């Protein structure tokens, strides 16, 4: 098992957070949150990966004794994707309202809450 997928996962999370920090557009911010989350999918899937193993669906081509990748992390990634869809939709809906009420979606120009 190489370090490569773990590095990709860490990179995606950090790149996503960096994107949020430097964002000049709230839609960009929300997409960057999704990118940070995709890092967690890569991490989970690489934890369950086994070289030479097949998908964890047993049938005629995959007898129960055959090596398969870990299905638990796949279920976790799936749950994570559902959560992501909900949160992204909710955040985008809030961005639409920010655009309507503030007339801008540039984070630097949102001045309502400070101190």
């Amino acid at each position: 098992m190489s370090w490569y997928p773990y590095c990709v996962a860490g990179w995606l999370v950090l790149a996503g957070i960096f994107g949020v920090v430097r964002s000049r557009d709230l839609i960009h911010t929300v997409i960057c949150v999704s990118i940070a989350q995709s890092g967690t999918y890569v991490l989970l899937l690489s934890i369950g990966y086994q070289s030479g193993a097949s998908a964890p669906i047993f049938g005629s081509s995959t007898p129960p004794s055959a090596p398969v990748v870990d299905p638990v992390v796949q279920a976790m990634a799936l749950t994570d994707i559902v959560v992501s869809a909900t949160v992204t939709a909710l955040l985008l809906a809030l961005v639409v309202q920010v655009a309507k009420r503030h007339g801008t979606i540039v984070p630097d120009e949102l001045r309502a809450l400070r101190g």
Partner: protein
Amino acid sequence: MPMSAALPPLAITLPIAVGCVLLAAGRYLPRWAIDGLAMVGAVLGVALAALLMVATAHTRVITWLGGWQPRHGVTVGIVLVADRINSGAALLVAVLTAAALLFGWRYFEDVHAHYQALTLLFMAGMTGFALTGDLFDMFVFFELMGAAAYALAGLRIEEPESVQGGLSFGVVNSLGAYLCLMGIGLLYARTGQLGLAQIGAALAGKPADPLVLGGFALIATGWLVKAAAVPFHFWLADAHAVAPTPVCVLFSGVMAPLGVYGVGRVYWVIAHGVVADGAVRRMLLVLGVLTAVLGALMCFTQRHVKRLLAYSTIAHIGLFLIGLAALSPLGIAAAALYAAGHAGVKGALFLLTGILLSRHQTVDEFELYGRGTQHRFSGVLFVLGGLALAGLPPFGTGLGKALLEESGFGAGMTVLVIAVSAVTGAAVVRVGLRTYFGLGPRPSRESSAEETTGRQEQPEVEESLRRTPATMLAAVLLLLGGGLLVGVLPWVARSTGAAAVRFADQRGYLAQVLHGATSRLGDVPDTGWSAEGVALGLVSAALAAGLAALAVYARRLPGAVRIGARVVGRPVRPALISLHRLHSGHVGDYAAWLVVGAGAVAGLLALG
């Protein structure tokens, strides 16, 4: 399987079921039916949590979902584990939800059942987070309560501040949740388990390697974001400033303290004996002290009353973290009693602020000056709440504070705890004296660019209230009375002491969850009032009253004193202004601080 094993899943699913009925049928039902149905859901939740409290008097209640019991300590099942601490948290969630719904009975005029349904989903998420014994389920419930909370914070979508606060809240908490999920992934990679007990058993007896340490640091970061520890605290003030007032009761009273609970649970089941005690204590103490001090400073220098209360919550979260940092049953009992008393008192204060907002359309302390003089009774309650926050005996907050001072940190920590609680209490008393009693000179209304004033808030009710509805005042009295009962009933303190011992009993937890073995409880610390605790509680309440009077009458002081104060204050003022400037309302800054904080947590743990 005993009957009591059905209680935890029921406590989680029942509010979800009622919430779904409300969402489906909300548009066809009249308003009273919506409110009544939601209230039935919350009250049944109170009953279930109370039954669970009874069932967990001498043991843990363990529910293997779907009947997947462990065989010889090996299991593929998912488990709910209730003890007195987390069923108490579930009870707190249900009681605060009921109070929020009672207060909201006449509060929102036009809401299509969304408010009630979201509140019930929020309740389910928090109950699940408290009761589960599985790390990944903790993450899922964390996200469920998160999603419901973002929507509740941004509920008043016509308001610019509301949607902005909801958005920052959502972004910061989501990023925290993803860091937490990475930590869960790392622990799964090491142990192949997701259950807390299973992970604890797999790691037991081995010192932490960097992978386990990193996993624990990331999970702690996730829960600390929810707890709003410094430097993850920025979202909390924004979310509280914009959320409907009854929702603030839930945010402050139980959602943020549940983050502290999460850190405690994960430490005591998984990390105790694996990660060095010194490292965990250092991490919790550093964050706790920073959070308490910064929260108190920001609280005292606010004029937006809801933000002021929010920063006071942050200061108290710091105190709960210090209680946890004692890494002893007494510290846990202190934090638990403090949190329970705080929930009642802070909830009552938020609701009183909500009444002010609906009556005067502003939550600016300076604008509110002298406007509540018709409502002296509310004023007395508000000032009493402020003094209780400072630790006035016999409120639960006072008991928690007294036990915190006795948790073995020494005199320096006692001084800090008294100072922090007195300053946050003083800020509240100051608002109460100015608003309801019109004391002191009228504050000037000019505002600087670095603060949120809370002027011209949209009222949350359609027409401003001439008379306070009985339901609103009933909710206030219920919460304040609850905060009082926590400190008055000796039974509460005693059983919290025993509950804290069981909470900290790692070996007993693993043995009961994995092998069904029950164990005897160790020595229960004395968690009653001591003479010293009462005296120090009175001292901090007196300090709070004095400090508030000083703030109210600052401009009437003799000239020499004022000039002296100005000379002393000269170096402090720029520091305070830059502190306020740090709270920029910019979501990118918050994300940057999140990374800094995650690094700090990992660094403090890695120092060994």
